[in-house]
């Protein structure tokens, strides 16, 4: 009489374990990123498919969970970096230098945000630069300093936040996200030193 009862218990256990495992896998896949189709260049990551009408279910679920409305692929492409070009995580106690070159775009903006995508409180009340208002050297190249302490030229401060991400948005860019891009021909994030 024990055997059938045993089987029911096993079936129940299999169901509960399957349920738990399924939800854990879903939570893990939606935690970071937008499923598949990441476009990585050095420390920068963009998700071209999240802004495409041909979106996949993982990207759709990730967008809905975070309440985001992405840029359309025809509008532009947003790159996020949470590490420097050597792979170390961005730390607001450190100073960084962000430097050319950039792919072609009608306009671009480069700014700081919290890892959850909110503007950061900082003494300058500046959250980013655009391609029109960044100061350039002769020839068009530019440098951007990221530091808690005032710097001459283009400077962004992460304020008192512990961690931050860099967001680069290329508006109307002919950049082909299917191509493999050389990180040397993309914005570099160089750590200069830490306080």
């Amino acid at each position, binding site marked *: 009489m024990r055997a059938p009862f045993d089987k029911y218990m096993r*079936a129940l*256990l*299999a*169901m509960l*374990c*399957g*349920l738990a*495992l*399924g*939800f854990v*896998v*879903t939570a893990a*896949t*939606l935690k970071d990123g937008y499923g598949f189709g990441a476009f990585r260049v050095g420390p920068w990551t963009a998700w071209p498919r999240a*802004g*495409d*009408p041909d*979106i996949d*279910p993982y*990207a*759709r*679920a990730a*967008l*809905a*969970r*975070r*309440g*985001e*409305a*992405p*840029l*359309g*692929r*025809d*509008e*532009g492409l*947003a790159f*996020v970096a949470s590490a420097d070009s050597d792979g170390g995580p961005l730390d607001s106690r450190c100073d960084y230098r962000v430097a050319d070159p950039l792919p072609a775009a*009608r*306009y671009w*903006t480069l*700014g700081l*945000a919290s890892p*959850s*995508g*909110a*503007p950061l*409180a*900082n003494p300058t009340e*500046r*959250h*980013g630069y*655009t391609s*029109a*208002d960044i100061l350039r050297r002769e020839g068009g190249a530019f440098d951007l300093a990221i530091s808690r302490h005032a710097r001459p030229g283009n400077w962004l401060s992460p*304020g008192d936040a512990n961690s931050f991400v860099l*967001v680069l*948005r290329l*508006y*109307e860019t002919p950049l082909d996200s299917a191509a493999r891009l050389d990180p040397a021909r993309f914005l570099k994030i160089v750590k200069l030193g830490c306080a």
Partner: protein
Amino acid sequence: MKLEDRATGLLPWIVATLLIAGVVHIVSVLLTPLVAPRHAYARLLEAAKSDRPANGETARNGVMLFDPPAPGPQLLPFEDPAMAEGVCLFDLARGPLRLRADIDSEDYLGLSFHAPSGAIFHAMTDRASNKGKIDIIVGDARQIEEMEASDSDEAPPQETRLTAPSPLGFVLIRALAKRPSDYERARASVEAVSCEIEAEP
């Protein structure tokens, strides 16, 4: 021998567990856009409904303007602080949405058409305007079909017609402020966009 027996006895249960896990995973990913409590449309609707919107100004021309970016959580995460933004919420059960805009500046203006989950079904910029005008109708499949049926052969339709994948959704309007001092001007170009419910033919 006994261990082997146990292993072969457990194998079907392990397979069953993995199968259930797979089904639960697929179903939960597909259902997330429907059940997520704070998806983009829910956030925008909440801001539009509240009397004194915390993050959005009262609607004008059917467009709800976002507050200028400030530190701390915004209406939608990961929006560009260099953009002045506004949104038109639509419910196609009340009729198709007609969006009109006159493009009179050289600066970037982006329009993206979203399902409630935030997924995009169409996007365009000011570059896609027709002689400085943008004229778009968003409808469901039936409304668009009816419009096409009532078209006359002599006068081709002037507007762009979009079929929305779901009756609810929103259109995000983003205008670039090239410099912080341009913000008010960018905001005015968002305000110049009009969204109205079109009477059905």
